[in-house]
């Protein structure tokens, strides 16, 4: 199975966001630099829902809780779309390698 690129994942995330962002009074573009908290106004519970939406999209589980707690421990105060994409890319490609081997 071919590796998933960061650009593909960002495009997937844009698609997921665009289905809902119209209800949020957010009129900006979704880009890799878009911040989930500061720009989109998401809260912790929204990140949980976003994780569920992403898992439905890729039809596999991801360790979102572990990732979020580690970001908090590192005192990361916001998450950009490209951070989510990198996290997903790591796990999707890791899973692809595992499945193919």
């Amino acid at each position, binding site marked *: 199975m071919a590796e998933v690129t960061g650009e593909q994942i960002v495009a997937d995330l844009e698609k997921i966001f665009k289905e809902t962002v119209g209800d949020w009074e957010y009129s900006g573009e979704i880009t890799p630099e878009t911040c989930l908290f500061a720009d989109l106004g998401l809260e912790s519970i929204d990140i949980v829902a976003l994780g569920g939406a992403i898992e439905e999209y890729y039809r596999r589980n991801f*360790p979102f*809780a572990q990732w979020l707690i580690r970001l908090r421990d590192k005192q990361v105060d916001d998450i950009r779309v490209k951070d989510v994409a990198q996290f997903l890319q790591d796990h999707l490609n890791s899973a692809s390698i595992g499945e193919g081997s």
Partner: protein
Amino acid sequence: MTRRVVLIGLDGGTFSTLDPLMDQGVMPFLKGFLASGVRGELLSVIPPLTPPGWASLVTGRTPGNHGVMDFFRFESPESRYIRPVNSRDVRCETIWSIISRQRLKATVLNFPLMAPPGPISGNVVPGWAPWKFLRRLCFPRDLYDKIKTVPGFNVQELAMDFKLEVRAIEGGSKEEYEDWIHFHIRREKQWFEILRYLMQEDPCDLTAVLFDGVDKLQHLLWRFIDPDYVSTHPSAWEQRIRDLCLDYFRQLDGLIAEIVAAAGPEAWVFLASDHGFGPSTEVFYINAWLHRQGYLEWATDAPEDTSEAGRLGLGMIMRSPSIVDWSRTTAYGLTPSSNGVHIAVAGRRGQEGIDPKQYERIRSILVDQLCQLSDPATGGRVLTQVWTREEAFSGTQMDTAPDLTLCIRDGGFLSILKSNVILKPRPEVVGVHRPEGVFMAKGPGIRQGLSLPALSITDVAPTLLYTLGLPVPRDLEGRVAEQIFEPPWLHEHPIRAGEPTHVPEVFPPWTDHTEDKEGEAQVLERLKKLGYLE
């Protein structure tokens, strides 16, 4: 469409609240409903909690089999991190799916564990979903644009606000009480309006709606609802809050009346709750007790609860793995809601812990200690039950359960927070869950004016399937509540056993290559030194 069945969920509905309200004339419709139908207590599961309760009600299976035991679960069998449960965690088929396979349709509104929604024949607006994602979480996808047209639609009030949920249980400021009650009246009306719209636009064989303000008001405002705690000489403010609580139930009664009227005289209407309710007068700090007994060591920055009211730690559940020092902890409470105690077993979650060979012995010691745990002030036992996972969660999903589950003497939840006391009296009584929920039913063939012995919450799903004229899958743990039907009806409509349910799809887990390899190596080295690993 041959039969029309309506299920009205009352989250936390309990006869100890509803009976006085019916007697006082606050809920006249419900009183009349019961005069022409049946009633009985509906015994919930262990623990009597919203997610396992509703999951059992809609699957006819116990938590040990459907796998939902709390609001949260470990992210994977190897992880110590937790996340909220969702529809993917219900490992048994729901009635919505079963009837869809039988070419019937369902509308399901505000039930937990419906997001992300699986494809069913009908409509789903899930409960426990944040408003920013509600559009994505409705099924079918175009449903959100339809319900947006319903008069009074306000998605931010319709959907779940987790911060409000926490405040309901941890206690908010008294200045918020009036707004809190008004908010829930508006919210129930919204769900009703959506229900009425869908009953008109897309009538279904099974229509289900859940009103969860019953739970929220009872948690926060028990002392204004339970006649045993209502002040005999209330202040003007206390009387106003009491009157508003009664107004909530009065308006809920009106909504139930309108739903029953809309369903029509030939419909079957069931009312049920996931658990009951009762008063709680103290907070029990399980992790503080485990610390005193030498099972748990706090992390250096673990927050301490110094509040007068006592806190459970609901607002920081997701971070709860961070409050203990894992290198020196062998047993811990992870969430207040589960009332569970987990034993750290070396190798189970990649962390230090007890030798797996010592598990049974250490668990047995811990059970004995918990059973002996007494109130230093009175000497009375603090816990009325301590269940092992085999006792509470026997089934295919037992391995995901806490090692022990506790029942506190006042039915309350555990606090997971650090504290310099083990028990703290609450300055004001609050409402907490009880196993005894409610079951009410009325319709063709259903007996009238009858009060029944308690039913099991797992009996509801097979009873709904039978009422819809469908065979009852052989693998359901509950049984059709035959006693609610007139014998001639049962004779003319025999119960049919059907094929087993279908097992829901499970997503594959991740391959975790992002673990802290250095930390993991240190752990493995320590385990080797302890003799746990070769």
